[in-house]
């Protein structure tokens, strides 16, 4: 027997659960403003999530997927991107979408059942939320291929969950990205649960990062509750991809503190004790602790931030609630570039019905 290949998987963390630095922070984190921006984005995300859940509970929003406890993953990821990169989120990355300029009103419209929620005023090339798990990984490869063909220094960034790593689509996309050396970064939000299925029943692989090995692309794991680690590792992967060095897979290890969605009741399948224990590791208090201890964050600033986030979210909610639905005929208006004549009769029927 001859050994012909060998691989290792590394784990990166900068802040431990108590907010203590475990090693020297990366360059970007030397900048107070940069860290505070990450902190603010996470707090805004949590404020937004809480409001969205309460809108759902009071019948003013459809099913909603909170990112409670996982804010560092989308926020750290989006923070590592440039404006001209393209973000392909799944359904739990509102934190990253907001940071990239998707309006909170749009996100509410989407979950409130209105297609205009995916017509982002902001990042026009970003993909809408992807519900069928993992099916956007091939899109990300396609977007990256477009960049590569045009010789653009842009990167496609695709986020999906631990459950998604069991989908053939995700594997096929990573494999293709590897063989074509595409500028795409895949980020796994490993929150340890796919609805009721724990990570351990999803795969026998010791890490999800090693899924990259099958595709011939580098895989690494980070502490997904440490936004500095996420921002750092995803940033390295993005800049590596931008430099033409190909794709990578980053596994961000975090925990879903909420139910799967508002339609779920996690107490049916998950121990409360497990959840309580995990609260000790969540990303916001961890970074706050670090900021406070490095004496760069005051109580006054915290209070201002909380008030500010609440106000921003309230404004978005009001705008959302005040948006009248589209007319029923809207279902025909962007079906094709030009409505085929064969459909004119159906459209007329809807128009008539909605007028009567």
């Amino acid at each position, binding site marked *: 027997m001859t050994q012909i290949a060998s691989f290792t998987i590394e784990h990166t963390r900068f802040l431990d659960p108590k907010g203590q630095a475990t090693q020297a922070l990366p360059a970007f984190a030397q900048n107070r403003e940069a860290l505070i921006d990450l902190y603010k984005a996470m707090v805004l995300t949590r404020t937004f999530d809480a409001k969205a859940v309460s809108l759902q509970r009071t019948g003013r929003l*459809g*099913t909603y997927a909170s990112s409670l406890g996982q804010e560092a993953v989308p926020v750290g990821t989006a923070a590592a991107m440039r404006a001209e990169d393209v973000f392909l989120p799944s*359904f739990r990355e509102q934190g990253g979408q907001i940071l990239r300029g998707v309006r909170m009103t749009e996100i509410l419209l*989407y*979950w*409130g*059942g*209105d*297609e205009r929620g995916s017509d982002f005023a902001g990042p026009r090339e970003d993909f809408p*939320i992807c*519900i*069928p*798990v*993992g099916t956007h990984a091939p899109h990300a490869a396609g977007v990256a291929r477009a960049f590569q063909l045009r010789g653009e220094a842009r990167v496609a960034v695709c986020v999906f969950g631990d*459950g*998604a790593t*069991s*989908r*053939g*689509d995700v594997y096929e996309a990573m494999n293709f990205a590897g063989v074509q050396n595409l500028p795409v970064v895949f980020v796994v939000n490993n929150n340890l649960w*796919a*609805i*009721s*299925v724990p990570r351990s*029943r*999803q*795969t026998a692989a010791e890490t999800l990062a090693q899924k990259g090995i099958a595709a011939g692309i580098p895989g690494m794991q980070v502490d997904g509750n440490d936004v500095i680690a996420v921002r750092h590792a995803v940033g390295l992967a993005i800049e590596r991809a931008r430099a033409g060095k190909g794709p990578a897979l980053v596994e961000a290890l975090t925990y879903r503190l909420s139910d799967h969605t508002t*339609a*779920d009741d996690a107490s*049916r*399948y998950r121990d409360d004790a497990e959840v309580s224990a995990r609260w000790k590791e969540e990303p916001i208090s961890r970074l706050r602790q670090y900021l406070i201890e490095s004496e760069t964050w005051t109580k006054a600033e915290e209070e201002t931030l909380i008030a500010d986030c609440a106000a921003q979210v309230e404004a978005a909610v009001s705008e959302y609630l005040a948006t009248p*639905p*589209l007319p*029923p005929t*809207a*279902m*025909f208006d962007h*079906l094709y570039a030009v409505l085929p004549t*064969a*459909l004119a009769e*159906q459209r007329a029927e*809807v128009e008539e*019905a*909605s007028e009567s």
Partner: protein
Amino acid sequence: MTEATLVEAVGLALACAMEDDETVLLLGEDIGVDGGVFRATADLIARFGAGRVMDTPLSESLFAGLAVGLGAQGFRPVVEYQFMGFIYPAIDQILNHAGRLRNRTRGRLTCPLVIRAPFGGGIHAPEHHSESMEALFAHIPGIRVVIPSSPARAYGLLLAAIRDPDPVVFLEPKRIYRALKEDIADDGIAAPLDQCFTLRAGRDMTLVTWGAMVVETLAAAEILAAEGVEAEVIDVATLKPLDMAAILSSVERTGRCVIVHEAPLSGGVGAEIAAGLANRGLVNLLAPVQRVAGYDTVMPLPRLETDYMPTEERILRTARRVLAYA
């Protein structure tokens, strides 16, 4: 006798089939301790164990293929897809393998699997959760496509589907999962496959439908009855193979037919029924056969979904036009 909703009746049928026959197995996402996103399999893992009620990884293409392997080995796997919107990766296995295995091996290997999925709109569900694409399955050779429209039929038809030696795609109208309760004897008696059910007798016209649309169609028939028009209401139930004989014999008597389905009009199963009537060229047809259906558009998100779905009113409007036909 137990009072049960449609989704509870599904659970009763699964339990009954598993009790009777230990080759019956369940597979799917979250069907174990969670009991399924609609709770159809609630408590079954406690009763039958994790061997027979298996939470699978999130691999939709895999499940159907797994079931082909299990089926060839003599098991009767029942696979749950969480929503019809996530079943499409399985079409390859259903079409290229499940529907062909018996034929291509001349009966040596068979595929007694059931694929269950909730479908249809009207519950304000997220994107991709509300479509009705039964026609995609009804065109595939070698399989059956069955849709129940009441708790009792869900119970009886699901038992029949599980016991059937060939693959069955069993689609559950989730809008009426909990719409009403019905007494279920839970006696293990299956309902017949390959047959329509006449839900209401009538001599003046035939309304043909299936799934959740049975509700609006029956309601329309009640209103027509109040106006002195007796509409026969047929629940197709098995969409493939289609019991055209039953539909023909009704329309031969009534002379008028309206077909109602939630799926997009073009190429829906209603087309096959209308074509079946057209092919037979009923001499006593008093009016052209009409279809009331979803539009040939993407199912809108919840704010407009009711504008997409056939309503009692649309059914009535069409029925009246058909009745008015000289």
